[in-house]
């Protein structure tokens, strides 16, 4: 039986989570800031992640536009406890990923890019 769209999105997030153990959480968020699918740690509020992702994306897009950097593809925030990555997943959504401080950035960027492409097709 064919999987529903929601199941496909959750499957992509689970695969990203399991293939890269340093990933602590991921969510697919609409441009309006609504959660489409998520796999987040229990102590992280889904609402906050979606609202903040949409806010960052909005400011980033505006910045890229004003400074003539073209269409936004990715955002990267590094704190001393880990990273927060927002990647465009098609024209209607973004993939938000949180990873711990030990994460190998090359692998994370590669896996996130692949997952974002899969999500864009599935959405």
């Amino acid at each position, binding site marked *: 039986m064919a999987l529903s769209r929601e199941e496909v999105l959750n499957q992509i997030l689970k695969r990203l989570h399991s293939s890269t153990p340093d990933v602590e959480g991921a969510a697919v968020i*609409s441009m*309006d*800031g*609504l959660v489409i699918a998520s796999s987040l740690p229990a102590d992280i509020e889904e*609402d906050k992640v979606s*609202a*903040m992702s*949409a*806010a960052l994306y*909005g*400011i980033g897009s*505006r910045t890229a536009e004003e400074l003539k950097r073209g269409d936004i593809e990715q955002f990267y925030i590094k704190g001393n406890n880990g990273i927060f990555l927002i990647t465009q997943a098609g024209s209607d959504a973004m993939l938000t990923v949180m990873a711990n401080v030990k994460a190998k950035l090359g692998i994370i960027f590669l896996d996130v890019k692949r997952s974002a492409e899969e999500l864009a097709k599935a959405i």
Partner: protein
Amino acid sequence: MAKNPVKYALWGMLVGNIESMGILPALQGGEAIARSIETEGGDVLEKLAQIDGENNYEISEKGEFRYVVLKHCPFASVYKDIPAWGEKAMKLVDAYNKKEDGGGALHPICLVHKGVRKAMNAGVISLGCRSEGTGKIEVAEKALKKAAITKEEVLGMIEGKACIFAIKA
């Protein structure tokens, strides 16, 4: 005709921020208001009444819930003589109304108002809003079951009034 600068400043800040950052400024605005009315002790309704207005509540009880109807929208005067909210801000209101824990918003200021209730961390469940200007009603349908109330009951209680929310008695 002269414009009201205070209304225009509020409108401009809210629309500008929403257009750049989505729902976050509305929620954070609500949190800031909630912090400003937080006082030690006191019932949550006493705290909320500081912005909702004195003698503006009609309260009924059913089962484990108190249902609170606001007779007048405390922000109604702001809505008069301001420019249109714009497509992006109203799209955000629509998106909020589709959220699992959202719904019942008519304008971007409703999002700030609901943000205040959420930030009180007192289990307030927003159930609906009615526009004083147009009579349009928006019910938070996904919240009805959680608040043990039907859509018909909400519509009956809000008719001729402004806003309704539930809180555990």
